[in-house]
Every structure is written in structure tokens, then in C-alpha cells.
């Protein structure tokens, strides 16, 4: 407010003397003292300043931070998008959990508080807790993070002053064991450390957040189908029990896109108790381990003969005599009394036949062929690195021969399933993926000719349909299954253990135009009455694969062949 109380119309001649206001109007009145004028000015100024101040405050503080802020360290948690299966069923999501912290400055009796907290949470160290709570200089200390609602209630009921809760996102896996190896793990700050969870962090979908609000990011959609995953797990569980196996693995892969519809490794783990599990029991046999898979590798040897050596399925190989390489002798279990055709080598699973092919090809060509199929690479999926193949230190002729029938080269079931997919899908290399592919990715490269692929499919079908085929127990009326058995002795101390085997079956379905490859492996099955004490894959892995196909056929929309024929 300006100090210009003089009226404007007053001429200079009539200008009031200082100290007298409006002498021409209020001449008779006592002039206001200067002090009163000042006082008025001050009062009005104060009022207007107050008004202006209030206006400014209202304008500036449209969203005031009214919440009580505690003295606490800068701390971040992460919110993550959901993980769903290919049909949108939930596999992992964030929920809100209470985390308990203390303000040691206002904890009155640190000893008593530490004792009572340690009694409630046995995993807390009472001495350490006492030390933390007694440190009056601190204003913030975590006691225990991610409590269950019941734990939080109990901690609240202790009524210890200076304890409080903070809400944090916590990752939960409603499907529990079923997808634990694929989904992976998160750490205490909700950051991915393994599996798809780590992939989510690597693509930047996990965001640091101050409050545990659900993520607005679209869910990560896996190629896995929970229904199929469950059917495979269920059938493998039943097989493990029936054949008294220690472990089992199953992979179902779409041959064109490389999508994994199921990847099961048993025994599996509840993600919530992953850390408590035995080291040996939390091992994903599908991607985390390499194994010599035995005779299923003859599919690759068949491809080698057809594609590299220009053989046809009907070419004869004399497998009557055992194969001598240096001081090693390779003989058949059942010695044939006539030469076998190339297809017969697969159908009857002839080691000698496979060995002859390997010797004919030579080490360099065999190695190049396996490399082309991707069997020698270290591969990755979104769920992390796949255990790299274990190659022989010295790949000579004898190693070449043993590799031809599945010994001497150890690969993960996932990597083998991908190579088999490439062989039967028309010859295009596929890259295994755990994420749903909207479109079939363009084929990377041709690995074998379409004719070779067709011949392999035909031979695989005959392994199951032929009266002498090793896989005839995988036959189910209706579904046109093709496949190959493989029984591999497990390496142990001082050589192979003949009584411990990995018996596997690699199935393609339907055989004439495969859409899926299924690889089933049973680890150390025992001989039972039904198998007459034997542990060969044709007697345990093949029927297990058949049980699985029977279950998942309708889910995959595979129409029984008999029905398809009737319709035509």
C-alpha cells in the first residue's frame, strides 16, 4: 500500500502541510497523528500480506505431502509385470506384503523387544537384533521383510513401541511347483535373479517404485500351456512312481516356432521354499543338466547318412559282424542274421549300423553336421543359459562311433529337442523359446533337405508302428506317433554303471506332418515285473510318452488319425 493519502484534485497552492490530512475538508478536526497513520498502514499491510501468503500457499500446495515421513534410508523396491501362460493363466504376480522395521531411538527396552521378536521369528538372530535395537543413534532398521498376513498380525500384537510396518510388493507364484524352474526367482527387493524373472529385468519391465502398486506393464506371456504342463508333470510323476525312477524330465516343443508348451523337471520345487530345498533336488534337468541320451541320437546319425552321405532309407548296411575300432569292439545286443537297411538301423536301434555310418562320414563331417544342427553350441533361452554341451576332449574315430549312438556327447534335453525339431520340421533350424510367438519366426537356416526330413519322419513312424520297432509300446490307436527310444548307461565312478540308466523317448506327433516334438526322460528307472526286470526305454519311456500323448492330444487339438481318415 502506497503512502499517498493526498487527494489528487488538490492544487499545489492548497497542498496540505505535512502531518495534516485534508485540511480543506476536515479543517476543524484534530489532525491524525503520524503514529496512528503508521499503525493503520502496518495493520492493513499485515492483513494483505497474510492474505497473499495464504493464496500462495493454497496455489502451491494443491497436493500437500501430509503423510508422516519417518527417518529412513533411501530404499527402493521393484514392481514387476505378471507372468502368464499362453492362455493368460496367472503364473506369477505381485501382492502386497507387510515388512517390519524398527525405529531404535524410540524402542524402550531393546532386550525385551529382541527376545520377543526372536521368539516370534525363529530365523532371526536374537543377539544381533538386540544390538540393532539398542543403537539409539539409528532411526531405521529392518527387522523382517515380506511377512505373511498372520506373521504381521502376530508382530503387531506384540505391541512393542518403535516397531512399524511398511508395505512392499512381494512376488507370489500361484501355480507353485508346476512352473518354478521356468519362472525363476526374485530377490528380497523383488528383482529377478533367475529364469523368466531375470528376463523381465533385462528387458526393463521391472520398475523401481516407492509404493507397492500393481505394475501397469503388460504381462509377460509364456509359450507354456499350464494345462499341458500339468498333464506332462502328472504323467511323469506317475511314471516315476511306477518305474521307481529317481527323476524325470519332459519337453514339448512346437517344431516350427520352437515354442515350449511344456518343460517339466521332477522332482520340482515350491518357489516359496526354493532356498530350503536340497541342492540336488533343485536342479532343472531340462535346461540345467547335460546327459548322454543314448540311442535317440541315432536320429541325428540317420540325418547324417541321408543328407551328407547321400544314402537312401533302403540302402543296406552289413551289421552282422561286430565293429572293431582299435581295441574297442561294438556289438549288437541282438545280433541280426541279415544286413539291415538304413531305416532298419533306426527301427531296430543298431549300434553297429550307426557306427558304420559315423566311420563312413568321418569325424570332420560328423562334427560339422552336429554343429549345423546346433548340438555343439551354447544356447540361451529367455529363461537363461542352457547348460552347454559336453564334448569329448579328443574327438577321434572311436568317439565318433560312440556319439553316433548317443554316448560321448552330453546335451541338455532342451537342446536335443530343438535339434530333433529341426530334423523333422522340413529341415529348418529352430530356436527354442519360452515366450509366446505371435507369428512363426522366419526359419533361421536350412539344416537338412526337405527330403531328408521326410525320410526321418517316415523312419520314426516305423520305429513305433513296425513289429520289430523298439518303440512299439508308444503306439496308441488314433494318434500317429513316431519316435525313437534311447537307453543310456549313466557314467559313474570308473566307467558306466550298467544298472543305472537314463531311458528316453523322443516322439513326434503326428508323424506324417509333425507339429510337436515330445522328449521324455526317466532317470534311473528300476526293473519291475511289468518290464520283466528290464530298464530299456522301449519298456518304460515309450509307454510313458504314449500316456502323455493320450492326455495332451485333445488339448493340442490333434484329431485322431482314424477320425481324420473317416472324414476324408
Amino acid at each position, binding site marked *: 500500500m502506497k503512502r499517498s*493519502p493526498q*487527494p489528487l484534485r488538490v492544487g499545489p497552492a492548497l497542498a496540505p502541510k505535512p502531518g495534516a*490530512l*485534508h485540511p480543506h*475538508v476536515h479543517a476543524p478536526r484534530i489532525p491524525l497523528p503520524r503514529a496512528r497513520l503508521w499503525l*493503520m498502514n502496518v*495493520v*492493513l499491510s499485515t*492483513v*494483505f500480506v*497474510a*492474505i497473499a501468503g*495464504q*493464496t500462495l500457499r*493454497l496455489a502451491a500446495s494443491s*497436493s*500437500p505431502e*501430509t503423510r508422516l515421513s519417518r527417518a529412513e534410508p533411501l530404499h527402493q523396491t521393484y514392481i514387476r509385470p505378471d507372468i502368464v501362460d499362453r492362455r493368460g*493363466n*496367472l*503364473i506369477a*504376480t*505381485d*501382492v*502386497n506384503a507387510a515388512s517390519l522395521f524398527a525405529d531404535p531411538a524410540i524402542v524402550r527396552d531393546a532386550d525385551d523387544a529382541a527376545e520377543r521378536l526372536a521368539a516370534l521369528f525363529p530365523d532371526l538372530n536374537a543377539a544381533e537384533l538386540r544390538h540393532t535395537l539398542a543403537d539409539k543413534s539409528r532411526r531405521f532398521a529392518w527387522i523382517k521383510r515380506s511377512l505373511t498376513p498372520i506373521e504381521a498380525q502376530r508382530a503387531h500384537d506384540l505391541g512393542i513401541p518403535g516397531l512399524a510396518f511398511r508395505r512392499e510388493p512381494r512376488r*507370489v507364484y*500361484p*501355480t*507353485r511347483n*508346476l512352473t518354478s524352474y521356468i519362472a525363476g526367482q526374485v530377490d528380497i527387493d523383488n528383482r529377478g535373479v533367475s529364469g523368466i524373472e531375470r528376463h523381465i529385468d533385462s528387458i526393463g519391465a521391472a520398475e523401481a517404485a516407492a*509404493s*507397492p*502398486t*500393481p505394475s501397469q506393464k503388460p504381462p509377460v506371456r509364456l509359450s507354456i500351456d*499350464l*494345462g499341458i*504342463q*500339468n*498333464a506332462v*508333470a*502328472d504323467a511323469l510323476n506317475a511314471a516315476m512312481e511306477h518305474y521307481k525312477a529317481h527323476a524325470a524330465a519332459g519337453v514339448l516343443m512346437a517344431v516350427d516356432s520352437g515354442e515350449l508348451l511344456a518343460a517339466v523337471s521332477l522332482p520340482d520345487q515350491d518357489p516359496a521354499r526354493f532356498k530350503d530345498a536340497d541342492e540336488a533336488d533343485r536342479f532343472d534337468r531340462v535346461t540345467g543338466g547335460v546327459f548322454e541320451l543314448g540311442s535317440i541320437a541315432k536320429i541325428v546319425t540317420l540325418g547324417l547318412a541321408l543328407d551328407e552321405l547321400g544314402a537312401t532309407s533302403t540302402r543296406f548296411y552289413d551289421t552282422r559282424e561286430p565293429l572293431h575300432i582299435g581295441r574297442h569292439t561294438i556289438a549288437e545286443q541282438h545280433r541280426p542274421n541279415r544286413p539291415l537297411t538304413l531305416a532298419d538301423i533306426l527301427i531296430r536301434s543298431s549300434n553297429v549300423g550307426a557306427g558304420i555310418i559315423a566311420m563312413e562320414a568321418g569325424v570332420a563331417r560328423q562334427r560339422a553336421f552336429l554343429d549345423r544342427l546346433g548340438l555343439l553350441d551354447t544356447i540361451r533361452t529367455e529363461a537363461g543359459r542352457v547348460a552347454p554341451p559336453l564334448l569329448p576332449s579328443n574327438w577321434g574315430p572311436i568317439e565318433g562311433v560312440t556319439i553316433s549312438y548317443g554316448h560321448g556327447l552330453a546335451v541338455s534335453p532342451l537342446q536335443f529337442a530343438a535339434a530333433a525339431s529341426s530334423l523333422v520340421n522340413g529341415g529348418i533350424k529352430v530356436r527354442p523359446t519360452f515366450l509366446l510367438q505371435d507369428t512363426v519366426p522366419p526359419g533361421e537356416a536350412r539344416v537338412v533337405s526337405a527330403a531328408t526330413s521326410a525320410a526321418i519322419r517316415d523312419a520314426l513312424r516305423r520305429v513305433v508302428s513296425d513289429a520289430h520297432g523298439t518303440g512299439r509300446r508308444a503306439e*496308441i*490307436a*488314433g*494318434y500317429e506317433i513316431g519316435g525313437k527310444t534311447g537307453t543310456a548307461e549313466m557314467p559313474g565312478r570308473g566307467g558306466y554303471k550298467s544298472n543305472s540308466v537314463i531311458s528316453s523317448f523322443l516322439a513326434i506327433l503326428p508323424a506324417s506332418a509333425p507339429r510337436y516334438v515330445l522328449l521324455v526322460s526317466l532317470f534311473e528307472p528300476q526293473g519291475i515285473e511289468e518290464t520283466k526286470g528290464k530298464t530299456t526305454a522301449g519298456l518304460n519311456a515309450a509307454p510313458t510318452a504314449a500316456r502323455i500323448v*493320450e*492326455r495332451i*492330444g*485333445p488339448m493340442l487339438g490333434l*484329431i*485322431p488319425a*482314424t*477320425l481324420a481318415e*473317416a*472324414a476324408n
Partner: protein
Amino acid sequence: MFRFATVSTVLLAVASAFVLYAISYETRRLELHVNAQLRTVEKTGLDIAVLRAERAYLARPDRIEALARKIGLAPIEPRQYEYIPAAAPATSKRAP
């Protein structure tokens, strides 16, 4: 004149202060209301997350399978498929 101006200015100042106080009070009340609503939204969002997780837990395939088997359902078998020509999609053949 001066007195009138002074008095009216004072009155205006008092009136403005009163109005501003009222507005401020109302604003604070509305902000509390908004905050309460935001908390409700946040809490509801979190409740939805928990319910979705619970629903997924209850709908996990192994549990549904056990329940389905209990009421006599089982996975379909190949022999249960039947080809019914009449139900097949219509071809170009038409009744005269």
C-alpha cells in the same frame, strides 16, 4: 472519504480473509476426501491383486483335475471321438 476508504478496505480485508479461510478449509476437507479415495483405490487395487493370485491358486490345473475326477470326469480318450458325417461342415453338394 478517506475514512470510508479505510474502513471499507479493512472490511474488504477481513472479508477476504474470511472467504480465503473458508476456501482453504474446504480445500483441505476435499483433499482429505481425495486422499481417502486414493487410498481406497490403492487398497482395492491391491486387494484385486491378492484375489487374482488366490483365484489362480485355486484354479491351478492339478487341483481342478483332482476335483474333476471326483465328480467322474476324465481326460478325453481317442476312442471317444466319433465321426458324424451329418455334423461335418457343409460341402458344395446341395440338395436339389
